[in-house]
């Protein structure tokens, strides 16, 4: 079978490019310019899928992105994608697609048995069943439902393609490249404004691509080509085909998905992004998206071969496909006559079934002149055919449209085109908070009161279906938009001449009666084809009280499919309105939510994936850490050395525990070096700097001497600790603050906030200098000797005491050296401008060889500080802990009247006795390391629930103490030191623990002098 249904001449195809593709394992050919849908139809393939619920055979209903039925699994393997509309896939050579949601095949689908028992699946049936026994829901019923769920299959491999984002700015964004959109872009572009014209189709022209209209007496597509050529010459105009504007957000921020290489398929250059996600900020927006045809809701209106009238016309004229031989056009309006005429011209036998008793427009006359059979006042009341439509029965309708008033007549057909009028595409208008108005003449929603960003609409998206109107609106709105954006005088270009559209009125019959009452018998009146929602479901919902549109949608699932109800929503609303005997706008409109058509996760993410997902921040010494074999820990976005495992001569590498034990011992025995560059650092200057710190920290700062450092706790206004660090006074009006690694940005923000908004009169300026300084911390008994090898600074404890700072050179580089300690041992934090960091680290490593230097990472740092009972904010505190809870009353100044957080100490709960307080824990078994997070209880019960007193915040095996140590927040812990409590673990083990002081090592604190 080879393109049997292809017309000889027609269509915008490049017939020199024959393309081969595969559908359901069968090979076919098509041409460049085809969509998958048009190519399938050209090859006589009508059955392309199965519906969601009943697994009814389905075909191609539309020729655009509104398609509810023809969803295919495109490609295989890593590039497979589910639920792809065959109507928007540009055919490329080698394309592979398969039908989905059917098994074993689309022709013989076992689950189509659902049709037989459809009576038992009315809307909402699952809310009424599967409740007995309750325990069966998840393991039994839901399993069955999930087996039937979904449509296509997710890819199971990593996507080999790349994606990009583009931030774009323009004066005028025109959405839609039909006649109105092109006119708007021309009018705006000629003023010099920056214009973006985007259209979802592969070429600009919109409805003109399927039409034979004339503009200024020439084929309209000549005008399109000429206009595009002009737009191309305008420097600041960007024309984007294959680009769907998907979302309209605040302040004219619109998102658009450009399918850059989809039409080339997998053979596209892999350096080019597959799709580009545009984020456009426009000064003005012109919405010219056109209109979508509405299907009629009649009995068994879902068989393959039943399609929208305009879609058939598109297949004939644009794609050169006449997909059948016998056509019935079923309509309530004149526009479908064009389809009938074109089908007739293309050689098909055509019957028109017109709901109207007396259609009178010129198109009707033209059809009559062509001797096309017109059945007036009639409706299609049944259809037949197994895998495709083979015929239909028609009958006369009563005046009220509710019943048949004649016998039925059978007409054989293999295509049934139908039209229930048009819905202007108001989706973006609505997304932009614009109101919608029901046009009672045109029987559709049109843009009403605009949202705050005042977009304008033009063309058939406003309900204007006349080509001249579309052009003149486009020109006018384009010129006005440019003027509003500051370009041009607003002068409107002259509209070229077109033939006026003369159409008679439509006849609205929202539910076409069938041979039996609605819901009786087997016939189904679909309004939502994809989700298998039928008119009788709306009646059922109404009967049961699900009257609001949202209830209706949710109860019946109408409009919830991948097409988001583009062809179904208005029909559903109208049917509900009829039932409720209300006007359609009274029933309501549904909310249009982004995206207009589905957008790939890949495009939304763009480049922000893999190594660009979140930055990996590293210090200046990172290359050395890699060389030294560090294993890294993620601390915020930073990669910090966690530990430095050694590999023995035999090739065995230390485990983390082994490495940490070794590092812990060696630091205390000789000297260790840690990269502390990631700690936050803030330069604070100004004559009120000390006063400012008095407010920020709990302790006093005005009495600190230049060159000296002090530890501080920072509280929020709840009185809870939120950061800590050492701050050094460099000069009277100059401080250097350090913060936790994770808290750096938060603390700077906190300081700026108070300084700028509450105390602007204070003379103080903060500047982040975190990365300015690379920091090598050396600590341990040999630290002084090591440092002495690389500096000429005086290091004797008298000249350079604990908590002091000196400037000088270290390993030849300018440095600030702080004698502060997070290990309790003698320690120096050597700060050098980051450019020298790697050099100084390497110099210290080299010099350290004679001092027994070991490199250590964050894990050893944590153990060593825990040995000394030093807290880590965020680990030993959790935002509910005051300094008093930490037994750090000493750091809370009694001399200051106020500081941030102070007042909260005096609240009843904050000053209460028995709050959770930080204590040390010693396990009964000295080798047992408690899991962090385990809970401490007074009374152990055989099983939970048990009343807990608090939890273990830090827990390690300490080689230097020779046993396990832990810190915990325990209710009334400070008063309970010496008590023995229990820690019951989830595995059933219960460990007895004794509450102790938090300092486990060098309780006298003598080691900090070395």
């Amino acid at each position: 079978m080879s393109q049997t249904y292809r017309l000889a001449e027609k269509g915008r195809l490049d017939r020199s490019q024959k393309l081969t593709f595969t559908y359901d394992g069968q090979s076919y050919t098509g041409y460049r310019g085809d969509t998958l849908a048009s190519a399938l139809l050209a090859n006589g393939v009508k059955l392309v899928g199965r519906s969601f619920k009943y697994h009814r055979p389905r075909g191609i209903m539309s020729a655009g992105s509104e398609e509810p039925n023809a969803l295919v699994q495109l490609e295989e393997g890593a590039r497979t994608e589910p639920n792809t509309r065959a109507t928007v896939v540009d055919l490329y050579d080698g394309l592979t697609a398969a039908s989905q949601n059917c098994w074993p095949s689309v022709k013989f689908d076992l689950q189509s048995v659902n049709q037989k028992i459809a009576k038992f699946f009315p809307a909402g049936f699952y809310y009424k069943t599967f409740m007995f026994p309750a325990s069966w829901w998840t393991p039994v019923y839901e399993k069955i439902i999930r087996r039937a769920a979904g449509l296509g299959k997710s890819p199971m491999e990593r996507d080999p393609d790349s994606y990009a984002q583009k931030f774009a700015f323009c004066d005028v964004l025109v959405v839609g490249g039909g006649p109105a959109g092109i006119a708007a872009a021309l009018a705006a572009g000629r003023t010099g404004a920056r214009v973006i014209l985007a259209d979802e189709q592969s070429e600009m022209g919109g409805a003109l691509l399927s039409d034979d209209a004339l503009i200024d007496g020439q084929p309209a597509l000549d005008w399109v080509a000429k206009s595009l050529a002009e737009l191309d010459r305008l420097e600041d105009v960007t024309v984007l085909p294959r680009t769907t504007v998907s979302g309209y957000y605040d302040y004219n921020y619109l998102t658009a998905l450009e399918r850059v290489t989809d039409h080339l398929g997998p053979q596209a250059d892999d350096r080019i992004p597959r799709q580009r996600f545009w984020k456009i900020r426009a000064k003005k927006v012109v919405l010219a998206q056109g209109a979508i045809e509405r299907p009629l809701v009649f009995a068994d209106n879902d068989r393959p071969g039943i399609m929208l009238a305009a879609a058939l016309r598109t297949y004939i004229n644009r794609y050169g496909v006449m997909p059948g031989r016998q056509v019935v056009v079923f309509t309530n309006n004149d526009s479908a006559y064009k389809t009938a005429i074109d089908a007739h011209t293309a050689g098909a036998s055509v019957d028109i079934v017109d709901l109207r008793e007396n259609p009178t427009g010129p198109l009707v006359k033209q059809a009559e002149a062509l001797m096309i059979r017109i059945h007036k006042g009639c409706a299609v009341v049944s259809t037949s055919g197994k895998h495709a439509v083979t015929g239909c029965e028609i009958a006369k309708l009563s005046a009220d449209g509710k019943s048949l008033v004649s016998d039925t007549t059978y007409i054989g057909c293999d295509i049934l085109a139908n039209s229930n009028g048009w819905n202007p595409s108001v989706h973006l208008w609505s997304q932009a908070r614009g109101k919608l108005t029901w046009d009672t003449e045109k029987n559709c929603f049109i843009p009403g009161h605009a949202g705050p960003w005042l977009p304008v609409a033009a063309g058939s998206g406003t309900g204007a279906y006349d080509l001249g109107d579309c052009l003149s609106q486009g020109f006018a709105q384009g010129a006005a938009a440019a003027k509003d954006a500051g370009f041009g005088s607003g002068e409107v270009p002259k509209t070229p001449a077109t033939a006026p559209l003369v159409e008679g009125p439509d006849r609205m019959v929202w539910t076409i009666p069938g041979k039996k009452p609605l819901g009786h018998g087997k016939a189904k009146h679909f309004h939502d084809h994809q989700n298998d929602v039928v008119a009788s479901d709306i009646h059922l919902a109404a009967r049961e009280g699900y009257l609001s549109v949202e209830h209706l949608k949710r109860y019946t699932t109408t409009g919830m499919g991948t097409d988001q109800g583009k062809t179904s929503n208005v029909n559903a609303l109208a049917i509900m309105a009829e039932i409720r005997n209300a006007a359609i706008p009274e029933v309501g409109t549904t909310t249009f939510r982004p995206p207009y058509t589905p957008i790939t996760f890949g495009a939304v993410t763009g480049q922000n994936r893999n190594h660009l997902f979140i930055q990996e921040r590293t210090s200046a010494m990172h290359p050395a850490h890699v060389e030294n074999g560090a294993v890294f820990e993620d601390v915020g976005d930073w990669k910090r050395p966690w530990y430095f495992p050694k590999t023995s001569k035999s090739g065995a590498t230390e485990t983390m525990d082994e490495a940490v034990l070794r590092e812990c011992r060696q630091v205390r025995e000789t000297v260790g070096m840690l990269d502390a560059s990631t700690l936050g650092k803030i330069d604070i200057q100004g004559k009120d700097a000390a006063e400012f710190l008095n407010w920020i920290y709990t302790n006093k700062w005005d009495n600190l001497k230049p060159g000296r450092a002090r530890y501080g706790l920072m509280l929020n206004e709840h009185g809870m600790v939120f950061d800590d660090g050492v701050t050094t006074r460099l000069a009277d009006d100059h401080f250097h603050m350090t913060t936790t690694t994770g808290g750096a940005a938060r603390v700077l923000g906190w300081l700026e906030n108070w300084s700028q908004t509450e105390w602007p009169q204070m003379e103080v300026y903060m500047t982040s200098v975190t990365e300015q300084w690379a920091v090598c911390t050396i600590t341990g008994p040999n630290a002084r000797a090591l440092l002495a090898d690389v500096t000429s600074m005086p290091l004797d404890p008298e000249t350079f005491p604990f908590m002091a700072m000196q400037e000088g050179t270290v390993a030849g580089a300018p440095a600030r050296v702080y004698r502060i300690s997070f290990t309790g041992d003698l320690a120096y934090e050597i700060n050098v401008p980051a450019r020298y960091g790697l050099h100084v680290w390497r110099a210290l490593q080299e010099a350290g060889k004679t001092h027994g230097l070991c490199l250590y990472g964050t894990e050893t740092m944590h153990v060593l500080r825990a040995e000394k009972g030093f807290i880590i904010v965020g680990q030993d505190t959790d935002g509910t802990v005051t300094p008093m809870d930490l037994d750090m009353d000493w750091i809370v100044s009694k001399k200051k009247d106020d500081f941030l957080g102070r007042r909260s100490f005096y609240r009843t709960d904050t000053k209460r006795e028995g709050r959770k307080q930080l204590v040390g824990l010693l396990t009964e078994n000295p080798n047992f390391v408690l899991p962090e997070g385990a809970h401490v209880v007074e009374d152990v019960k055989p099983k939970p629930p048990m009343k807990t007193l608090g939890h273990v915040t830090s827990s390690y095996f300490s080689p230097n103490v020779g046993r396990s140590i832990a810190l915990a927040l325990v209710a009334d812990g400070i008063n309970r030191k010496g008590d023995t409590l229990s820690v019951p673990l989830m595995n059933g083990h219960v460990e007895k623990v004794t509450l102790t002081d938090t300092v486990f090592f060098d309780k006298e604190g003598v080691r900090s002098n070395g």
Partner: protein
Amino acid sequence: MKKYSIFAIARNARTHHENWERAWRSPDPKPHYDVVIVGGGGHGLATAYYLAKECGITNVAVIEKGWLGGGNTGRNTTIVRSNYLMDESAALYDHAVQLWEDLSDELNYNVMFSQRGLLHLAHNVHDMQEIGRRGNSIYMNGIDSEFLSPGQVKDMVPIINLNCRYPVMGGLLQRRGGTARHDAVAWGYARAADAMGVDIIQNCEVTGFKIEGGVVKGVETTRGSIGAGKVGVVAAGHSSVVAEMAGFRMPLESFPLQAFVSEPMKPIVDCVIMSNAIHAYISQSDKGELVIGGSGDPFISYSQRGSFDQIEHVVGPVLELYPIFSRVRMLRQWGGITDVTVDRSPIMTKTPVENMFFNCGWGTGGFKATPGSGHVFAHSIAKGEMHPIAAPFSMDRFHTGALIDEAAAAAVAH
């Protein structure tokens, strides 16, 4: 109320489903009710249901400015869990889970409570400490809790990319957690409450309160004055607005929170997976859609929209954890308004106005609590004293400092 069952469906199939009765009436408001519930979402309807069912108070109205279940009930990602850190929260949320387990049966409405398991991922040492504490807290409260190794995480979610930017170091699983069908919860409660005589009045907006001598006497609405013995306000994102009408303020801020679904696909994610470090949570509905949520916008708003960059901030993490979804498409995004307290715990409280009770501040987590919240709130209103489970959640805590700080315990970095 005619019982729903497979037999009822079979019976009605014979009459072409033309004889189903209304799930709830559309009554006009009566002049006076013993209790008026302001807000026809899940919590409000549950409150009315339990007032009627357990407290014997059936002269109750639920007034709703839009359509019932139209607020956060119909806009959330349907997750149910009780793996909370603080004892008070655990008691509250597990009370809810216990009610969830029998809810379909109790309401004779299938709310599709699916205990498919809820998995929290840990991606760094701090996360591991956090789930260590959380897992043990949950365990100590007698609630199910399991730690999973990365290998066990992979077994449970074969499509996950363990070695992502922040590698998965472990997980915490609550097997009793899962999802439920959000709309069905509202509809089920509405139908059951209606059957006991509760008037559910939709399209009726509160415009003010009648307060005499510090005691509430009634509610002014767009459908006239309605007298009330007691008033329970369950207005979620609009609680501040309602409180303003009653003359006081609540310690709340309303933030937009967004969620989205993918196109439906054959199920391959059979549990709920949450991640804090790579911020996204994901489940796959019984229709096959991936249901995805993340963090809210950082500014207050009643716009029910939120910003697109929040969506990007969720899709990125989803692809980091599940790179195979790159070609999967986002189908629909929407926003809700979350009423957030500083300690990320709800408020169930008496108010400065006598006989007026507030239930709010559920932030992003209200759906899972629906039955528990309604249950204890109904008992509190009926008695005039807060139910013991609700008592710690009173607004006094913002004066005493006795916060129930779920946020502080989870969201700190080091």
